[in-house]
């Protein structure tokens, strides 16, 4: 089966600034594919090009065989988009919003009303469907925002950081919704800068940074890139010199790598316990007070750290 989405050397320049620098990847039908990267990495620009909102500076992408540059109307019939920012009419009720957006996708009459009822049920807002959106909590608005993207049962759903700025309960509900949709056969392209979300949802992950796709594969394939290692994270004081501590740890027995970030030093080793005593000693020697220590199994955060030398949230 050919991929539902094929991205070929997609580039987006704004004057001299390259927001996306020739990325290429495929998404198979039925997959959840995450684009993981920090803010400003180029995730939203990529989705905007794939959803035909922005014209690429060069390169192309095909969705269900239709080029996003040459046949955008055909592409729009296949995709659903859940934008990062809420895109709703707050003076309309949830039902009125869904009906309007359904009409924009060509739905009408009984099929539209039936579909609106289904979506309201799916996002858990049947009871409050007649309330104006402006009276909703942030989480409820997010759910309506997602519901709009589902109305026409798209084969490929683009979700651009749908959990930004919401409470943990709503976040949980959204992640469960994504998994449900995928179980029903919907292909999902999900962008996030939360490593946990990408880990929980994705069949495959593309790691994007500064407009470049720097890694691509299943989680297992990606974590293997950093080897079977563990990461020891030292949380230190604001005034302590993390750079100096990281440098002093280079060459310590069993320490593979030491990286400094704000108030943290990440120490990578095959077994964290093997280096723990030496790390604490080095910190004491430098008069650095350790507030807490985390030990992390290999994960996407470690992959990102390994590939970029920065944490995802930097």
């Amino acid at each position, binding site marked *: 089966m050919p991929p539902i989405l094929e991205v070929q050397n997609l580039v987006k320049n704004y004057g001299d600034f390259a927001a996306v620098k020739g990325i290429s990847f495929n998404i198979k039908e039925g997959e959840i594919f995450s684009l993981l990267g920090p803010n400003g990495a180029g995730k939203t620009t990529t989705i*905007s090009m794939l*959803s*035909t*909102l*922005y014209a690429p500076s060069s390169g192309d992408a095909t969705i269900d065989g239709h080029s996003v540059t040459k046949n955008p*109307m055909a592409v*729009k*019939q296949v*995709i659903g*988009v859940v*934008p990062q*920012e*809420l*895109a*709703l*009419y707050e*003076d*309309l009720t949830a039902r*009125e919003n869904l009906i*309007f*957006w359904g*009409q*924009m*996708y*060509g739905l009408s009459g009984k099929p539209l009303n039936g579909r609106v009822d289904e979506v309201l049920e799916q996002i858990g807002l049947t009871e409050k469907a007649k309330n104006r959106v402006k009276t909703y909590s942030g989480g409820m608005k997010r759910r309506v925002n997602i519901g*709009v993207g589902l109305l026409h049962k798209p084969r490929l759903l683009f979700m651009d950081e749908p959990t930004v700025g919401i409470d943990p309960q709503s976040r949980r509900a959204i992640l469960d919704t994504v998994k449900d949709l995928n179980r029903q056969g919907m292909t999902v392209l999900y962008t996030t800068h939360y490593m946990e979300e990408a880990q929980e949802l994705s069949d495959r992950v593309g790691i994007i940074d500064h407009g470049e796709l720097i890694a691509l594969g299943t989680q297992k394939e990606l974590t293997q890139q950093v080897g079977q290692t563990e990461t020891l994270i030292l949380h230190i004081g604001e005034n302590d010199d993390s750079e100096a501590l990281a440098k002093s740890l280079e060459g310590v027995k069993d320490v593979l790598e030491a990286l400094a970030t704000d108030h943290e030093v990440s120490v990578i080793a095959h077994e964290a316990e093997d280096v723990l005593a030496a790390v604490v000693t080095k910190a004491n020697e430098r008069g650095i007070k350790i507030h807490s220590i985390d030990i992390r199994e290999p994960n996407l955060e470690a992959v990102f750290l390994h590939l970029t030398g920065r944490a995802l949230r930097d």
Partner: protein
Amino acid sequence: MKKLFLIGIKDLRLIFRDRAALIFMLLAPFLLTIGMGFVTGRFSGGASGLSDIPVIIVNLDNDQLGDALADVFSSEELADLMEPTASSDPAAARRLIDEDEAAAAVIIPEGFTASIIPARGTTFDQNYVAPEPVQIEVYTNPSRPTSAGVVKAIVDEFVSRVEEGRTSGITSLLQLMSSGLLNLQNAESEASNLFQDVDESQSTAITLKSNVQGAEAIEFDILAFMAPGMALLFLMYTVSYGGRSILTERSQGTLPRLLVSPTSASQVLGGKVLGIFFAGVAQVGILILASSVFFGVKWGDALGLAILILATVFGAAGWGMLITALARSPGQVASVGSAIMLIFGILGGSFVQLDQLPPFVQTLSKITPNAWGLNGFTTLALGGTLPNLIEPVTALLIMGALLFGIAVVLFNRNGIMQK
């Protein structure tokens, strides 16, 4: 087309859910109309506001119809509205108008009656040569367009009544003759009697009109000027609000969302324009309906009124789109829109009758939908019908089309329909 309509209806719904917008669109013009009504004495049975219009009557005809028209201006019914002065010198009359001494001069040429009513004994004379038709001249004062418009409307009404009488009379006589019910000898006296009615009946041209619409229909009600004046003033608010919604949709993310749905940019823009148009028509329609229901204002010809409302909103919507196309943010549209609303209100005669403004302001007023709209509403209130609205309606349609064209070019150039 369906999507345009759906977007337009959605925008109409949104604007009617915005309380602040409703206050500006409906409540403010309604209250201001009431206030102006009190100020002008409309609610205390006072004059209409337009009164004692100075008009010079030059009756060179001195025959049945010429005298009848002169009598119209000095009739009891128009005593408050008109202040006629008789003159026998057309050149002197025109000069007085040029010197702003009166609103208009009505010059009834010699032979006017004879050109319409043949002299006895000549009608069926085979050698009879009908005289060249002569026309009444209304020499108007451009600095008093409303007052001059009233004079012109009265003359138009008289002429149209005479013309109507002549046509229907001749048709009836010919039918009676062809059916043998009237012989040649009697026909001439019957024909003469038909025209006799025009000046003999106490019904002047004005009150003849009342046979159809009620005697008061032709009386100029100041609210028929004030109410549309206020409605048109705040119509500019509505169209700029509508234009602002394009930029608001862009900033709130619904415009990009529309553009990633199977809806083209031109459909979205068309829908937004339709929304502005719907809102404007609803606003003016509601205000006009309210002034009819609450104040008893008579708006005249319904078809003319409907077409005038549509044309006025179209012209105003063009301005709304242009303001939007030139602005960078919804806030800019709001502030520029408010300024334009007030400027157009002053220029267009919403606050002060154009007659009382300097000639260059009156010329400048032609760029405003307010002036053309008021011109049309005044014409209707004075008994005019659709054919009398050709000039304002055409001007408004040209204005709207031109401004929309410029706005679309600017939209494309500035990429407003992009995220």
